[in-house]
C-alpha cells in the first residue's frame, strides 16, 4: 500500500488537496481537503440588503455572476420584489452564456491536459491531422496549413526550453492514449478556445458592464435600460451585436467542443466505467420562462435520484438539507455530531490540522475547511450529471434525445453516464441544450422591446422602507458546477443573517459524522494508478467534477445580533 498526495490540485479554482491510499495499482481510499479559508463573516451583517449580491459575487471569480444571481433572488424572495420578464430574460442570457462559456473553458483549459499529451502533438503529421479534423467537423480552421502553424508554434515553444504553463505536465505518461494527430487537434483547439472565450464573453460586457464580476444586477430586476431608440440603452444595435456573439458561441460549441468531447470519449472507453462514486443526485432545477417560483417552466427539472434509480424522480425539499462538521475544521455548539439546516448553521472556525509546513493531514480526525452537506442524511452529487440524470429520468424531451443520441454514437448504455467521462459528456450535452435557448431568449427580449415593453426593474420595492420589518428568503440557482442556494434574513432593511450552500461543498465534502465519504472521495476509489509519483488518473476524476474551492469554502455569513463570532463557511 502506498500513500500519495496531490497538493495543490491545479487547473481548478482554489486550493484543493487529495490524499489517497493505493493498493494493488488502484485507489483503495481517498480524502479531499479544502486548504484555504476566508470566512468573511459579519461583513455583510448590518449592510443594506440591496448590495448583498455585490459582496456575494466575490465568493468566486471563475463562476462569476452565479452568486450574484442567487443572492439577488434570495433578497427578492424575502422582500417580495418581482423582476419583470425582461429582467428575467437578461438574467437568463447572462447565466446561460456563463454556463456555456464556463463549460468550454473547463473542457479545454482545466480538464483537457488530463487526456491530451501536448508533447506527443509535436510528432503529428499536419496533413493527417487536417483530414481527421475534417472527418469529424465542419469547423473551417482545419487545413493542413492551420495545423502546420500550430505545430510550428508548439515546436518554437519546445525548442526554447521554456514550456511555460506546459512545463510541469505529465507528458509521456502511459495513461495518455490519443494519437499524435488527435493531440495536435486538441492543442490547436485549446489555443482557439482561449481566443473564443475572450471574444464571446463580451456578452457580459454589454449586459453587465464587465467580466469578471458583472455589475448590473439590482434587487427587483436589472440596471440595463431597454430602449430601441436610445444609444445609451440596450437597443437594436446592441441586440445585433449580442446576436453575432451568440452565433460565434454556438458555432464553436457545435463545431469544436462537442466533436472534441466525442473524440476524447471514444479514445478512453474504460473511463465510462471508472469514477462513478455516490449513486445519489440532487438538483434544484432552473432556467425557467418566468420567475424562479415558476418551477413548472424549468428547462432542467428539480428533483432527486436515489441509488441510481432512473425510473423515479423524487421531490427535492430544501428543508432536508443539513451540514455537518465532524471532520471539518469547525466546532458546533450543539456538538460534533450535529447536523444543522443552513438557517441554523453556525460555524466556529477551529483549525486543528498539522502546523505548516506539513507532509500529511491527520485524515483520521478533522481534515478540511469544507463542511459536509447532506440531504436527508445522504451524500449527494450535484452538477451537470445530476441535472442530466434528473432530466433524463423525468423524460425531458430535449435531454432525452440528446443523451440517447450521444450514447448511441459512443455505443454505450445509459449506465456509462455514471462515470468520469459521464460528467464530461453531461457538461457538453447541457451546453448544447442551453445554447439552443439563448438565441430564443434574446429574440424574446427584442420582441418585447419593440412591442413597447421596456420594463426592466420592479422599483416598487427598491426603497427598503417598503419592506417588511423582518423577512427571509431563499435564492436557488443551477450553475455550471451544480446546485447553488443562498439564504438571507433581513431585519429593518439590513442583513441579519446570510448563508450559502455551494456545489463544490456538496461534491468535495469530507466525511461526515457517520463516516460517509463525500462524492470525490467515493468516486476516486477504484481509480487505477500506473505511476504513484505522477497520479494523472486521479486528476481525471477530480477534474471531471470541475472543482471550485473558493466557492466551497467561502465566505459570507452574517449572524444575528453580532453576539457570536461565528463563521460560516458553510455549506457551500
Amino acid at each position, binding site marked *: 500500500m502506498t500513500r500519495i498526495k496531490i497538493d495543490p490540485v491545479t487547473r481548478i479554482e482554489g486550493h484543493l488537496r487529495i490524499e489517497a491510499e493505493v493498493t494493488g495499482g488502484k485507489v483503495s481510499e481517498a480524502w479531499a481537503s479544502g486548504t484555504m*479559508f476566508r470566512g468573511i463573516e459579519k461583513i455583510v451583517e448590518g449592510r443594506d440588503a440591496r448590495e448583498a449580491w455585490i459582496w456575494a459575487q466575490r465568493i468566486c471569480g471563475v463562476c462569476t455572476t452565479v452568486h450574484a444571481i442567487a443572492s439577488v433572488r434570495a433578497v427578492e424572495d424575502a422582500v417580495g420584489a418581482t423582476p419583470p420578464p425582461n429582467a428575467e430574460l437578461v438574467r437568463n442570457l447572462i447565466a446561460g452564456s456563463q454556463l456555456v462559456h464556463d463549460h468550454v473553458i473547463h473542457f479545454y483549459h482545466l480538464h483537457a491536459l488530463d487526456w491530451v499529451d501536448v508533447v506527443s502533438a509535436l510528432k503529428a503529421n499536419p496533413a493527417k491531422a487536417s483530414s481527421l479534423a475534417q472527418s469529424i467537423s465542419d469547423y473551417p480552421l482545419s487545413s493542413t496549413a492551420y495545423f502546420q502553424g500550430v505545430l510550428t508554434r508548439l515546436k518554437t515553444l519546445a525548442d526554447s526550453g521554456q514550456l511555460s504553463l506546459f512545463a*510541469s505536465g505529465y507528458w509521456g505518461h502511459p495513461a495518455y492514449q490519443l494519437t499524435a494527430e488527435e493531440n495536435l487537434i486538441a492543442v490547436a483547439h485549446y489555443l482557439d478556445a482561449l481566443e473564443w472565450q475572450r471574444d464571446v464573453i463580451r456578452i457580459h460586457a454589454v449586459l453587465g458592464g464587465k467580466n469578471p464580476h458583472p455589475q448590473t444586477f439590482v434587487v427587483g430586476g436589472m440596471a440595463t435600460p431597454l430602449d430601441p431608440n436610445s444609444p445609451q440603452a440596450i437597443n437594436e444595435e446592441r441586440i445585433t451585436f449580442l446576436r453575432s456573439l451568440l452565433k460565434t458561441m454556438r458555432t464553436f460549441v457545435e463545431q469544436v467542443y462537442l466533436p472534441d468531447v466525442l473524440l476524447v470519449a471514444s479514445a478512453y472507453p474504460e473511463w465510462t466505467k471508472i469514477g462513478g462514486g455516490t449513486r445519489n443526485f440532487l438538483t434544484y432545477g432552473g432556467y425557467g420562462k418566468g420567475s424562479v417560483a415558476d418551477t413548472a417552466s424549468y428547462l432542467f427539472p428539480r428533483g432527486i435520484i436515489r441509488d441510481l434509480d432512473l425510473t423515479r424522480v423524487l421531490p427535492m425539499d430544501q428543508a432536508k438539507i443539513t451540514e455537518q462538521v465532524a471532520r471539518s475544521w469547525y466546532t458546533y455548539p450543539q456538538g460534533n455530531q450535529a447536523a444543522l439546516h443552513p438557517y441554523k448553521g453556525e460555524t466556529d472556525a477551529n483549525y486543528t490540522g498539522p502546523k505548516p509546513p506539513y507532509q500529511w493531514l491527520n485524515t483520521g480526525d478533522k481534515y478540511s475547511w469544507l463542511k459536509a452537506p447532506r440531504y436527508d442524511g445522504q451524500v449527494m452529487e450535484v452538477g451537470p450529471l445530476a441535472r442530466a440524470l434528473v432530466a433524463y429520468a423525468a423524460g425531458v424531451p430535449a435531454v432525452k434525445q440528446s443523451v440517447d443520441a450521444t450514447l448511441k454514437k459512443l455505443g454505450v448504455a445509459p449506465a456509462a453516464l455514471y462515470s468520469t467521462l459521464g460528467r464530461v459528456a453531461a457538461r457538453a450535452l447541457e451546453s448544447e441544450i442551453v445554447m439552443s435557448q439563448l438565441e430564443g431568449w434574446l429574440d424574446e427580449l427584442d420582441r418585447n422591446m419593440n412591442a413597447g415593453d421596456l420594463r426592466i426593474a420592479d422599483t416598487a420595492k427598491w426603497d427598503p422602507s417598503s419592506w417588511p420589518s423582518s423577512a427571509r428568503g431563499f435564492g436557488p440557482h443551477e450553475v455550471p458546477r451544480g446546485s447553488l442556494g443562498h439564504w438571507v434574513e433581513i431585519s429593518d432593511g439590513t442583513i441579519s443573517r446570510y448563508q450559502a450552500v455551494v456545489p463544490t461543498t456538496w461534491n468535495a465534502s469530507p466525511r461526515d459524522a457517520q463516516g460517509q465519504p463525500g462524492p470525490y472521495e467515493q468516486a476516486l476509489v477504484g481509480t487505477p494508478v500506473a505511476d504513484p509519483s505522477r497520479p494523472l488518473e486521479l486528476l481525471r476524476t477530480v477534474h471531471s467534477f470541475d472543482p471550485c474551492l473558493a466557492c466551497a469554502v467561502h465566505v459570507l455569513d452574517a449572524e444575528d445580533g453580532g453576539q457570536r463570532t461565528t463563521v460560516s463557511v458553510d455549506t457551500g
Partner: protein
Amino acid sequence: MFPSGQTLPERLEERGVSRRTFVSFCGVMAATLALPAAYRTKIAEALSSVTRPVLIWRQFQDCAGNSESILRSPHPEVAEIVLETLAWNYHELIMAGSGEQAEAMSTQAVRDLKGKYIAVIEGAIPSGDGYCTIGGRSAVDIARDVVGNAAATLAVGACAWDGGLVQHGPTEGQGVQDVVPGANVVNLGGCPHNSANTVAVLVHYLTFGQMPALDQYNRPLFAYGDLIHDQCERRAYYDAGLFVEAWGDEGHRKGYCLYKMGCKGPAATYNCPNVRWNGGTSWPVEAGHNCIGCASPEFWSTMSPFYGRLPNVEGFGADTTAETLGLAVVGATTVAMAAHGVGKAIHSRTVRAHDSSAPAGPEPPPPGSAPTDTVTDSAPTASGGEPPATGGEPPATGGEPPATGGEPAP
C-alpha cells in the same frame, strides 16, 4: 534572443500576425501607459529582443477573478504576445502539472532565478496557521519566498493590494506589501484588476526594465491618476442636472447621470471609463449601473453603502461646479477613510485630478501628501527596488522611462 533565433515579431508573423499589427499593439500600449507615441518604436524593439523572463503567479485567499481577468486580456494578440514574451511557469488555475511537479516550478524560480523573475500575487494572505496552505506550506511562507526573491511583484486585485474583502473576516488576510514589507510591489487595485493595465505595466517593465511612475499607494499613475467622474461619458448630464431617479426610468434609458443612484465616480480614481472592459466593449456605468469605486483604497469599507448617495453636499445641484463637489466629496470620503485608519492621500490625489492646468511632465508632489518616498513620478519604483534582472538576461534594454505625469491617455 530566443534560442530558436526568432524574434517575437518573426514568430508572430509566422502565425499570421503582421508586423504592422504588432507595431500597432505597441502603439496601444504606449497610449495606455500615457507615453508619447514615439515610444511605440521603443516598446517594439524591447519586445522583439527580450529573452523570456520567468513569471510566477501565486494565488492565496482569492476568488481567481484576477486570473480570469488576465485570461480575458483585451486586444486579440495581447495575451499571446505577453505569454510568448514571458515564461509563465506557475499559475495554479491553468498550469499543466499538479502537486510536487507544480510546486517545483515555483521553488526552482526562487532558487535559481533570484532577483530575475516577476511575481504576480492574487488574493489576501492570512497569518494564522492553516487558513491557507498550498503543498503543505503556509501562504505567508510562500509569499515571503516568492515575493522576497522576485525582481518585481505585481499585486493584482483589491485583496492582494490591501486585503480587500478578506481583511474584514476572521482570518484578517492582508495585502502583499504588509506581509512582505520592503518588497518591490506595484499595486493594481480593482475588483478584479483590469488586465489592460496589468499588461501595459508588464510591457513597460519589459521595455524599460522598471515599473512606470507610481502614486503614493504604489499604483501606476497612468491608470489610477484621474477621477472617474472627469472621464465619464455621462458627465455632461451631471453638469446639466439630469439624473437617473429610478432603474429603468426615462433618464436611465437616456443615459443620464447615475449620481443619485449612488455612483462613486466623483470620489474614485481609475481609467475604467477609458480602457473599459473586455476589449473596450463597455464598463459598468455605460451598461447602466453606478460605479462602486472598486479600485479605491479599502473600497469595501470606504465606498459601501454602494447605493448610498455620496454624502449630501451643501448646495449640490446643477450649478455646482465639479470643483466644489469634488472637494466636498473628498472631505467626506477622507473622514470615512480616517475612520478605517487608511487613505492618507486620496484627498490630494483628487484635488490634483481636478487641476486641468497641470503641466505635462513630472508633477510636483501633491499638496499635503506624505513625504516624497510615497510619490514617485519617475523611476525607480517607489519602493526603491533596483532595476531588475541584475546580471544575466536583462529584460531591460536601457533607456530612461519617461516622466509620465498623471495625465490620461490621449
